[in-house]
Structures are given as C-alpha cells and as structure tokens.
C-alpha cells in the first residue's frame, strides 16, 4: 500500500466507494491481504469483517457494540476507515486490510506516538479503534474533527487527552522523581499498537462458545426447558438448565463480606424475575451455532403476576418476588418486596421544620444509567491439571474465586481467577454475571469455554445504576445555619438485591454527612421489581442522593439570599470534625484533612474569569451553578488489599498486586510508590496484577481503593523491603508481603462549577464553562488524576444531559443499542478545567486521597443549579435533555403551545 507521510495524518489510496475497485475485487480471485500479508482463509457468508479478523488472530480489532456505533472495531479497507462489525466480510475478499497491528507499517507510527505521548487512553480498549479512525481521516474529516469523531466512543477519558493527541500535544515528559510526576503507563506502547491483551485476546485451542437463553417474560415459573431441537443442531455440545446447576443462593454483587448483599440469586433459577434473566446456557463449537441454537430451546412458563415499578411493588397484596427466601438471606421484608430498609435519626427534625421560615422541600427523580464500559462482560475458562482457570473481565478476581468455590464446593486451590487488563468497568464488573454459568459448563464438560455479552445484553441483562426517587426537606435559621435535613427515598433494585444495601446506605448517609446539622432524618428503601437488576455504578449511590441534597441546599441558599458556595461552606464539615453516625454503629471515618475552602476558592476564581459568549440569539439565558460533594476515601467494611515485592537478582523488583487495572491507572501509581521508597527507577519495578495465584487474598478494585488502600499496602511493603535489604547480603532475593484493611478512613471533597446557556425556545443547553476543583491530597500522578476527573465529569454529564434507560411496559430495558442510549461523544462537550487543591491526608499513602469516583458526584447538581440560575426554573428530574428541559421550562402543554412570536 502506498502511503503519504506528513504526520500525524495520512490518507490512503482507493476509497471504498470506488465502484470500479469494488467490482474488481468481487469478481477477481485475488486474495485478501491483512497488514501486508496474503490471507489464505476465506470468510464465511455469515461473518462480519470483525469476526473474521479476530478469528485470524488480529485481536487489536475489538468487539464493542455490534452496530457500528462505538468504533472499537475500526480498520482500514483499501485505505478507508470502516466499522468492521457491520462490514460484510465477503466484501473484503480481495481487499487490502490494515488493523492497528499493521498501522505503523503504512505510515501510522506518528499517530500512535501522539496517542502514547498524550496518554490518550485509560483502559485502552477503544484506543485501537480511535487511532484507526483518525488514520482514516481525509481533508473533510480533518477540517471538522468533532463531526468526524462522532460514533467513535471512549468512555474513560472524556476525550480531552484524545483531543490532545490529535492536536499533537504531549501530556508527559520523562521524569526523574517518581512520586508526583506524570509517569506514563507501562502498558502504553502495547495499547497504541494493539498488542495489549484484554480478556478474550488470547488463543485457547478448541475453545467452545456459550450463549444464553434469556427470559422473554418479567415473572414466571419455568415449567420445562426442551433442548432437544437445539441439541440436534450440528456443533451444539450441551445445553444447561436449572436442573444442571447447583441449588445455591448467593448474590452477583462482590463484597469483602458476603453478608453485605442478600443471597437471592442462583446460577440458573427455576423462577425468572425479569426479562433478560438467564434461563439456559447453550454451548457449541462456534458462537454463531450457539446463538442459533438458543432460538431452538423451547421454554415453557407458568406466568406469574409482575410488578414493574416500585409503587406497584409496594402496594398491599403485590406479588412478592422473593417470598421463597428464608429470614437469614438478608432481605429486609421479602413479603413486601423491600430489599433494604434504612431508618436513622439524629436529634429531631420535626420541631425545626415546623418552626423555620426557611424551608425547602423538593422531590427528585434520577433514572437508571448504563456503564457502557466498551469491553463487554466476558470470560474464558478451562481446566489445567484439574484446576479451574477463569480469565475474566472482573474488578474482583479474588472475591469471584471465593464465590465459585462456594457455589461449586471447591477449595481455593482448585480455582484460579485471572483479570488481566480490563476494558473499562465503572462498577459494572464488581458483579459476577458470567463467571458462574461459565464455570458450570467448564466443570461439567472438562473443555475450554468462553462467554461474551453482546452490547444488547449489556443493556437488557447486565446491571445498571439504581433509579432513585427522593424527597429532601432542608431548613435553616436566619443566620443561614442548617437546622434540619430530612431525606425520604426509594431506590429500584430490580429483580435482585445486589449492591442495594451498600448503594442505599452510602448514598443517603454520605450525602447528608457533608453538612453539620443537629437534626437529620433518613427513611430509605430499596425495592424489588420485576426488572433488570441494578448494581454498583461509579459513585455508588452518592451521585443520585447528592443530586437531590445539593439541589435542595442550593434552593435554600437562594431563599436565604446567601451565596450558594458560602452557604455550603458555612454548613459543611471542617477539618478534624467527627461524624455522628446516622444509621450504624461507631464510624472509622473522620475529616482527617479538608481542602474544601481551597476548592471553593479555586472554582469561584476560575468562574470569575470571562466565559465564552452564549450562541447568538435572544432566546439564550445564561447562568452559573455550583455543587459540593464529599466522599469517604474508602468503602466501609474493611476493604483488604495485598501486595508482595520481591527484590530480584538482577536488581529489579517484582511487584505483585491483587488490585485490578481497568483504566484507573493504579498499576502506574503502585510502581511510582514502590520506586520512590526503593530508590530505584520506575522501569525497575515490574508489576504483575490481579491473579489469584499471585497472592492469598485481595478485595479488588472498587470503591476508589486502588491508590488509597492498595497503594498503602505497596508503601508499607516497600518500606519493609528497604529495611530487610539493609539487613541482608547484597543481591539477596528477598520477598515481603503486606496487606492493608482500609481503615481508618478520611473524606475527600470536590467542588464543581458550570456556566451554561439555555435556549428557552428549544430547551437546548450549552455548557460554556466547566470547572472542577478536587481535594485529592497528595497527587501521586497528576496526569492520571486529571484523567480520572476529566473522564468522570464527562461520564456524569452524559447521565445528567442525555443518557436515559428505562424499563418498558413489558419489563424490557430500553434502549438496547448505543444509537438509542446517547453517551457523550467527542465533540459534545467543552473540556473540564481541573484544579487541584493542596492537602495532605494522614490516613492515605504519602498523603493521598481517592479520586476515582468523587469527581462524578457534584456534576449533575451543579448543572441543574446553573440551569436554575439561568432560567429561574428548578428541574428536579434527570437527564436535562433538550426535550425534557423544554417541557420543564414551558410546562407540558398539549394545547397550542407558545405563540410563534416567541420564536
């Protein structure tokens, strides 16, 4: 292939719409060339190009969506970028294909280097597709990069670093001192060349494929599963039903303490409680055969009455989803569909609410949201010397191992769980959705099997963020001191209670804990419905409850005529404050450090700078809004992290960490901490991670623990090793292990500010300024911490502005494709301005605080508060999409509507 140099862009020879070239290709007997090499294999009529290329071992081509809407599978065909997931493979019969693996040979090296130097990735799963898309830009695309990048999604970075890469801006330079420096990821070169191995990017000989038969009804008893037609299909190896599965109850949620979640789930249950619940598992020689055979599995149901929303579920006499569960399964009131019931009081809210002249009461609605990690849930497993090996996309390999041991009555030494590089998670992989049913097949068949969710399955059958409705009542005296806070909330947990307790407990409690107030009251429930289960989601309930509480606080400050930030600062907890626990026993959390005043100052000063003007037209109103959030630096329940450092004979160090890497960058942070203590260069630290053979136990990568809890283990282990090395002979091979328990804990603060323009004639919302200040303690890697903030803010803006997921009248989640579920795209939002406040937290490693989830939480309320400031209208339901905002601003009038004169 001919190439045109002049980096970072280049353009190729024959565009695919060259009809003559296409006719030549389809008529001729030429062979396909892939990355410069003739390919002897011939694609099947049924294959898309992506499936064919991955089958040929080109694993840099990723499976993200199946519908041409994410871009992870982008390759060049005869020089033009195409989504290989919707490209008929037979059309490429005589084509010249370039994947990320071959890009550097056709002049793309500069582009890959630009992505490396800007570290324009976090998990790295979308990166090959993003780079290949840019490689296919022509003059028109280069002239309007925002438009050209639509439907090329990255869920981690918020696109800021990708924009830097496309503009040729670097984000790091070689550094000498590791801690506090922008140290790049050791996996970077592999990620930008497509060599990084994600979960399914390995070759396992004779692997079988599993597809799941899923319930089409919201509530039913499975009377029978007739697999005879499916089993008669050539290539089908087995069909598993509830009769084959162990009758063990557990939760798909993974926590250090299994009692955190109700035991209400089975591998395959004889009762289905939501559309999309797995009913049977078909295993065949190819995924295509398994998928076809799924349609031939005949399931007979005895229909049961269903409750599709929380109001119906709590009505007296409503059918109970889990009436069959015993009292010791951790369900608050199974007979009334109440999974979790939280009540807590400090003081008495009634008197101040009755007495105060300054009371605000508002009811808020936050819908479900989907994680949209671009690597779907996927697992591959096999037997190795009698041991079950499970390679999976999980945040919790050790806890998943323990769950598999319990379900299948195995010893820990009989199961190995490996989580290599994970293609995004956001809480969605703190869940066991694939490993259990896959292990069943591997153990019964004794053969390798893999299971990969489709994007449609991610939407309809994987977990979501919890939908929440909550009423917040807040009161203050005339000195602007809060006198009462009352929160009454309900969360929809769906058909199973995974994470319901943790999300509800942390969400409502921490949202109120931010404020010193003598009288507080919480009444909150998580309710079962016959819908897809909700689960862990970045922010873990705080985003929903902070939206409600902060909007109410904002409204109260307006009522009092006090600047919204001053009102919050006046009433927020301060350094060294103790928390009065609302709902549980003694707390191990204190405000060990606080840079909240600095954060407030940074955002105020940033927003005092001139903002870009609103779009032209007199229908645009401009306003400013703020929000403040607080997050405990680690989850409760003694999150355990383990590491081992070995000093090798070659003077290098092997650092084994239990915690997983899904784009959070903790692999780099651990190497930085270790190198700092050991006084070696960062390259001398070789990290291995998240494999249950490396260490005894580790709770996993969730709850923003990768730096604060696991990093502390690395710090202590490194210090121990320094001491041991001082006492040992030079060159001796020494190994030390350390584990930490994430206690005592502190809190981090985040302040967000927006300047927005709202078009009252259309409901369109434009973000003019987008500023966040974070109290991250010691920032060990500013580039990565900035990346976490950038990504979290954009993810939060997606949920606040466009993303909307709901259960339809049949209990089916809608939408089921990325075309319907609008996650932010490259050109949708202006960049966030990130400010780091200065603090040092005595509970964190080297003074650091966690910053994985915290930046997400204040975004939605700050946006709603800015809209309130601009328009005078308080919008209490998300998302603030143009249609909803228009209706909120103009009233839902089905009559004539506004007079045309107002346009």
């Amino acid at each position, binding site marked *: 292939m001919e190439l045109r140099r002049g980096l970072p862009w280049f353009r190729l020879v024959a*565009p695919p*719409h060259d*009809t003559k070239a296409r006719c030549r290709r*389809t008529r001729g007997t030429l062979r396909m060339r892939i990355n410069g090499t003739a390919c002897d294999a011939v694609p099947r*009529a*049924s294959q898309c190009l992506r*499936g064919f290329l991955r089958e040929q071992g080109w694993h840099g081509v990723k499976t993200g969506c*199946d519908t*041409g*809407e994410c*871009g992870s599978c*982008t390759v060049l065909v005869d020089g*033009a*970028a*195409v*989504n290989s*997931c*919707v*490209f*008929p493979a*037979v*059309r490429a019969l005589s084509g010249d294909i370039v994947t990320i693996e071959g890009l550097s040979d056709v002049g793309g090296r500069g582009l890959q280097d630009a992505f490396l130097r800007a570290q324009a990735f976090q998990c790295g799963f979308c990166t090959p597709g993003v780079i290949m*898309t840019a490689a*296919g830009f022509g003059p*028109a*695309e280069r002239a309007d990069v*925002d438009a050209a*990048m*639509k*439907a090329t999604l990255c869920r981690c970075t918020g696109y800021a670093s990708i924009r830097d890469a496309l503009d040729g801006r670097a984000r790091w330079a070689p550094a000498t001192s590791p801690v506090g420096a922008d140290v790049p990821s050791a996996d970077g070169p592999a990620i930008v060349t497509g060599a990084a191995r994600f979960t399914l990017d390995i070759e396992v000989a004779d692997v079988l494929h599993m597809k799941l038969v899923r319930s089409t009804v919201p509530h039913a008893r499975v009377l029978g599963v007739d697999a005879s037609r499916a089993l008669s299909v050539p290539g089908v190896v087995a069909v598993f039903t509830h009769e084959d599965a162990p009758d063990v109850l557990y939760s798909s949620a993974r926590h250090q303490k299994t009692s955190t979640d109700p035991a209400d789930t089975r591998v395959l249950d004889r009762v289905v409680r939501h559309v999309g619940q797995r009913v049977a598992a078909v295993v065949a020689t*190819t*995924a*295509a055969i398994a*998928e076809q055979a799924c*349609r031939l599995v005949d399931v007979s149901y005895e229909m049961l009455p269903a409750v599709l929303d929380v109001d119906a579920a709590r009505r007296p006499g409503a059918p109970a989803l889990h009436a069959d569960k015993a009292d010791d399964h951790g369900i608050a009131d199974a007979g009334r569909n109440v999974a979790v019931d939280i009540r807590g009081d400090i003081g008495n809210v009634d008197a101040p609410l009755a007495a105060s002249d300054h009371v605000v009461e508002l009811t808020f609605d936050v819908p479900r949201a989907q994680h949209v990690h671009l690597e779907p849930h996927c697992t591959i497993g096999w037997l190795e010397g009698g041991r079950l090996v499970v390679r999976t996309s999980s945040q919790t390999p050790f806890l998943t191992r323990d769950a598999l041991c319990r379900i299948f009555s195995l010893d820990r030494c009989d199961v190995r769980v490996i989580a290599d590089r994970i293609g995004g998670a956001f809480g969605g992989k703190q869940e066991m959705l694939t490993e259990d049913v896959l292990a069943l097949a591997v153990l019964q068949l004794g053969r390798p099997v893999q299971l990969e969710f*489709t994007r449609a399955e991610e939407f309809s059958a994987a977990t979501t963020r919890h939908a929440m409705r909550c009423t917040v009542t807040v009161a203050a005296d005339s000195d602007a001191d809060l006198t009462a806070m009352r929160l009454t909330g309900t969360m929809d947990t769906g058909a199973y209670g995974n994470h319901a307790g943790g999300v509800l407990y942390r969400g409502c409690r921490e949202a109120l804990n931010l404020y010193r107030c003598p009288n507080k009251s919480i009444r909150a429930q998580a309710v079962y419905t016959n819908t897809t289960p909700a689960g862990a989601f970045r922010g873990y309930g705080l985003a929903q409850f902070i939206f409600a509480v902060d909007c109410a606080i904002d409204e109260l400050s307006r009522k009092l005529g006090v600047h919204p930030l001053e009102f919050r600062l006046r009433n927020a907890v301060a350094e060294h404050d103790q928390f009065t626990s609302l709902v549980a026993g003694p707390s191990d959390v204190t405000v060990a450090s606080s840079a909240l005043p600095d954060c407030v100052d940074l955002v105020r000063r940033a927003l005092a700078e001139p903002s870009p003007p609103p779009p032209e037209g007199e229908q645009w109103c401009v306003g400013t809004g703020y929000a403040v959030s607080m997050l405990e630096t680690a989850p409760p329940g003694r999150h355990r992290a383990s590491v081992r450092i070995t000093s090798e004979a070659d003077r290098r160090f092997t650092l084994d960490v239990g915690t997983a890497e899904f784009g959070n960058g903790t692999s780099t942070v651990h190497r930085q901490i270790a190198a700092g203590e050991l006084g070696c260069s960062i390259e001398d630290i070789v990290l291995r991670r998240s494999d249950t053979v490396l260490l005894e136990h580790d709770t996993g990568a969730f709850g923003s623990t990768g730096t604060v809890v696991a990093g502390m283990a690395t710090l202590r282990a490194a210090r121990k090793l320094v001491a041991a090395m001082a006492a040992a002979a030079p060159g001796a091979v020494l190994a030390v292990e350390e584990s930490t328990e994430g206690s005592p804990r502190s809190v981090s603060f985040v302040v967000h500010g927006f300047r927005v323009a709202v078009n009252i004639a*259309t409901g369109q919302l434009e973000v003019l300024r987008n500023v966040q200040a974070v109290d991250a303690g010691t920032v060990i890697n500013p580039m990565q911490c900035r990346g976490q903030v950038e990504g979290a803010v954009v993810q939060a803006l997606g949920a606040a502005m*466009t993303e909307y997921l709901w259960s339809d009248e049949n209990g089916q989640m809608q*939408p089921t*494709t990325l*075309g*319907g*579920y*609008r996650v932010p*795209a490259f*050109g*949708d939002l202006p960049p966030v301005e990130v400010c780091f406040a200065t603090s040092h937290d005595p509970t964190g490693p080297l003074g650091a605080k966690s910053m994985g989830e915290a930046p997400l939480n204040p975004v939605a309320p700050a946006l709603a508060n800015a809209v309130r400031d601009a328009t005078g209208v308080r919008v209490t339901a998300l998302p603030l*999409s*143009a*249609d909803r905002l*228009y*209706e909120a601003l*103009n009233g*839902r009038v*089905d009559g*004539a*509507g*506004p007079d*045309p004169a107002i*346009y």
Partner: protein
Amino acid sequence: MDLPGIKEVMAAPSATWRPGDAWLGGGTWLFSRPQPDIDRLLDLHHFGWPPCERVADGISIAATCTIGELLELPEVREWSALSLMRHCCEAFSGSFKIRNLATVGGNLALSLPIGPMISLFSGLDGVCVIESAARSRAVPASEFVTGIGTNVLEPDELVRSVLLPTSVLRDRVAFRRISLTRHGPSAVVVVGRSAPGGCTLTVTAATPCPRQLTFPDVPSAHEAIARLEHGAWSYVGDFHGSDLWRRHMTRKLVVDVLEELSG
C-alpha cells in the same frame, strides 16, 4: 455482528429473489441486528450501477450510491436546491466510516424517521424507481415511507434509483434541523422549497412518515402553523426526543424556514 443464519451471498443480477433473501447494499444496518429470518444476501453492488447520472429529466441517483459519494457530488450553480444534499448527508447519524458504506437505497428502505435520505428526497419531490424481477414502478419519495420502519416495497422489490426532477432543482430551499445532541440523529427536519407559483414545506424525522404542506406562495408563520395544527399529525416520541417537544420544534423550525424563504 456475525449473522449465523446467512448461508450464502450471491450477486444480485444472477439470482432470483425468494423468501429468506435480503438485498445487500452497504450492509451497515443488516449486519447491525440479528436477522433470524434471512438466510441469503443478494449483493446489489454487482449491478455496477453508476452512483449518479444526469438524465433527460433530472438527476438519477442509484440505490447503491453511498452517502459519502453523494457528499462528493460537484455543485451545480443553477441547481441551488442541491445544497440540501450536503445538509442531509451531514445529518446522517452514523460516522463518516458508516457514511462511506451506507447507501441511499438502504437508508430509504430502512424507513426510519431519522433517515436523512427520506428528508432529502421527499423535500425535493424525488421519485423512487422501484423494481422487481417482474415489474417496475415509480412512487413519489414523499409517499414511499408509510410509517416507522414500513414502506411501499413488496418483499421482492428493491429501490433501483431516485430521480430528482430538473423542475425542482432550481427552486429556492431552506433547511432546518434539530437534535438532542450536537451531532446526534435528527429529531425534526423541516425543508422548505419555494418557486414562483408554489411553496412546499416538508416535515420529516418528527413524524412517522414525511408530511408535506403546499401553499400557492410563501405563507405567513401564522398561516403555516394554522395548517400544521389543522393537520393533527401524530409526532414520534422516542429516545431522539419526546413527541411534545418535536411538535413544538416543528412549529419553530417551520417559522425559521419561512423566515429564510421570505427573506
């Protein structure tokens, strides 16, 4: 995605349509959904139709012409109405990668409200040439779509081409579109066309199928909105925008289009 049911891909010219067949244009929609009822694809590219031809009474655009090819058509100064092509191609919801594969015929045959080719051809009074082995017929583009995802095609028929008549190409046109996100799928598209002796407003994306209002001259906003309300159309409500919002935005865009046409 892989389509496990597909056993064979045949060149369309050498095959006779039978149940279980689907016409393969760009493949970008076919390969994006499970297709349990299809076992054979008939590849239209083997016809080798030129993407775009100048014919006696206008321009003929082949069904296999891609959106990308349409964008690359040279501009003809006296055919001012062709400016609509660029607007509609840019309204395409897919990326430039999809645009380079997806075809005009596929976009029409999908018959979704967001389809920009439906906006384009109904707005310009295009005529769809529909063919099967046995017959050929012509249907106005504004009548081709009958509802969300439904159209006038019989199972064995395909769109061969769309004719844009010379008579409309000299008309003055105005285009307005709104979407929930900057580069998102259309929620409302209003195309206005005026020439001495007539003015046509075509609404797409907001309604299940194209809706047209004709006037003897460019009407006032009040007159147009009165006609709009009198029509009592049903509006689409989905994840690209609520029905109420689309209804109100249709009114707004109609006013904007009329302002441009009368300016």
